[in-house]
């Protein structure tokens, strides 16, 4: 296995009860690239993310994180592997009872034996990284949405991960804040050489950050490659996605006006 591959997903199938959400998905992520998983709502993006970070067991297939097969691993090994990845959740998942600084210090305290003064300094460095130096002692509920996302990013970065997952980083943010967050991710990639996996459906964001993209539809990969390659795929859904056409709109049930005009 090549050393520059951070994440390799092979033939992953995922089910919720009877419903099969992922029907054999392949995905590789190299170090130092931003890989975007895109697709419409309900296409399986978030499920794929959950499979990658061990929150959901795939029904079939393998997930190799940083070169190790996560699907064939004991719980303890998995925990020590997960320390090397960072996850930024859609709503931040910051602990509401702890100030921002303590939220970032938490993984450092739990997983390392760093002395207290070094932990404090690391927290300040990470906060400076996301430009939240003033927020160390504030509670998550005292932050705005964009600040909370940046704090979540700082916490995901606490242990200098080799691989960072971001679930909908720009969802619910204004275009300016969302653009700032995109720049921040790109800076992380350039400075740390991290692999970054971003799940999103924001077109602007995709165009700015994606080195390579993979597009999902109904549990299948319908396009994989550079952004241009994905954009020019023949698949109608990929085309519709980039041209922002609602594929189903004209075929839907008839409108009230049509019904009234045409008679019962």
């Amino acid at each position, binding site marked *: 296995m090549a050393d520059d591959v951070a994440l390799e997903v092979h033939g992953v199938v995922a089910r919720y009860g009877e419903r099969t959400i992922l029907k054999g998905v392949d995905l590789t992520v190299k170090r130092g690239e931003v890989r975007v998983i895109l697709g419409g709502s309900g296409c399986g993006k978030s499920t794929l993310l959950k499979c990658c970070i061990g929150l959901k067991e795939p029904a079939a297939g393998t997930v190799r994180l940083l070169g190790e097969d996560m699907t064939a691993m004991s719980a303890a090994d998995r925990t020590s592997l997960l320390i090397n990845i960072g996850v930024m959740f859609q709503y931040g998942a910051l602990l*509401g*009872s702890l100030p921002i600084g303590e939220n970032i210090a938490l993984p*450092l305290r739990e997983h*390392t*034996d*760093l*002395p207290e*003064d*070094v*932990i*404090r*300094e*690391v*927290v*300040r*460095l*990470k*906060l*400076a*990284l996301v430009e939240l*130096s*003033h927020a*160390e*002692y504030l*509670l*998550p*509920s005292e932050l705005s949405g964009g600040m909370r996302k940046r704090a979540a990013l700082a916490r995901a970065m606490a*242990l*200098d991960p080799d691989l960072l997952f971001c679930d909908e980083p720009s969802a619910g943010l204004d275009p300016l804040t969302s653009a700032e967050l995109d720049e921040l991710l790109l800076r992380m990639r350039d*400075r*740390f050489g991290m692999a970054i996996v971003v799940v999103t459906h924001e077109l602007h964001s995709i165009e700015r950050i994606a080195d390579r993209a993979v597009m999902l539809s109904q549990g299948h990969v319908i396009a994989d490659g550079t952004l241009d390659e994905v954009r020019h795929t023949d698949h109608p859904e990929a085309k519709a996605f980039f041209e922002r056409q609602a594929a189903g709109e004209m075929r839907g049930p008839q409108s009230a006006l049509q019904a009234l005009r045409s008679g019962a």
Partner: protein
Amino acid sequence: MTRPLDYELAADGPGATLRLRGDLRRDVVNELKKVLAQAAPARGSTLTLDLKEVGVVDSAAVATLLNSWRSADAAGGRLTVGPLSESAERALQMFRLGAPPGDAPKPPNVAEAAGDALLGGKEAGIAFLQLAADTTFAVLAVLRRPSKLRWYHLIEQCTDIGSRALGIVGLITFLVGLTIAFQSAYQLQQFGAAIYVANLTGVSMVREMGPLMCAILVAGRSGSSIAAEVATMQVSEEIDGLRVMGLDPIDFLAVPRFVAMTLMVPLLTALADLLGMLGGFLVGVFYLDIAWNAFLNQMLSSMVPWDFISGLIKSVAFGWGIALIGLHYGFRVRGGASEVGRMTTASVVASIFYIIVADCVFSVLFYVVL
């Protein structure tokens, strides 16, 4: 996987040079810190770090270097870096200095805490009175125009507060009646007055234990659920949502719960009275061998209707308090999940405290004044 830190300290000319080798990662930070402390420059001298041969430098190592730099500065010495490897230079450039290590906000001292508690208590008291007044007026408005009542919500609340509690209230008060009868029989038998177990069980259940036990159970079951539900709605902005849709949270949330409590707590109390007396009756008939009709006659003739009615009046007042306290703590939540839990606990404690105090006041009122 902890590897020893590879280093070499050389004193040359005006200052010393510390040459570090290998990866500077968080697993060598403790040792790095020790080495830096040993080599710490004295007042007026300089320690130069030679990072020419280091590999990966992570954020914990950068933080350690910065800390030593700060403490050297504070001691009047100087810590500086000499030649850098490419990765060391990248790492040191990557991180920008955060805010200078500021002070954590100090926890308030005793006097400040007492003042805060006092002012907070005053504010909470006013908010509670406001809520009680708003709810009362909203209920009166609904009484004038019953069509405005949200029947569906009222029935839902009545089911939740009333019928779902039948089993537990019945069982607990039955056992309480049983216990009172046993405990009093033990004393009364010594005087050959076992028949008076009937008086004691009947009167104490109807006047005191029935309403009290029932109210405490409702406070624990429904008071807490009101507080938790409203608090969760508050935290997830559902209350704001109601307001913006033009639905007054008092009308929408408080009125159905308040009315349901008013109706259900007396009914549960009546059940509690009945089952408590049944417990006493069973002890009298099967343990004390008193004829069932004699026991029943004694029990009923010892009570006047007022005993029963005063218990029901009390229970209505208990129900109002439980509903208002639950709503009050629910609406008062600010912040996140942990606050919801804290406020729910606080509401149950406050409800039970209120029930006991109110019970005391009613006892004085009924015995002394009336």
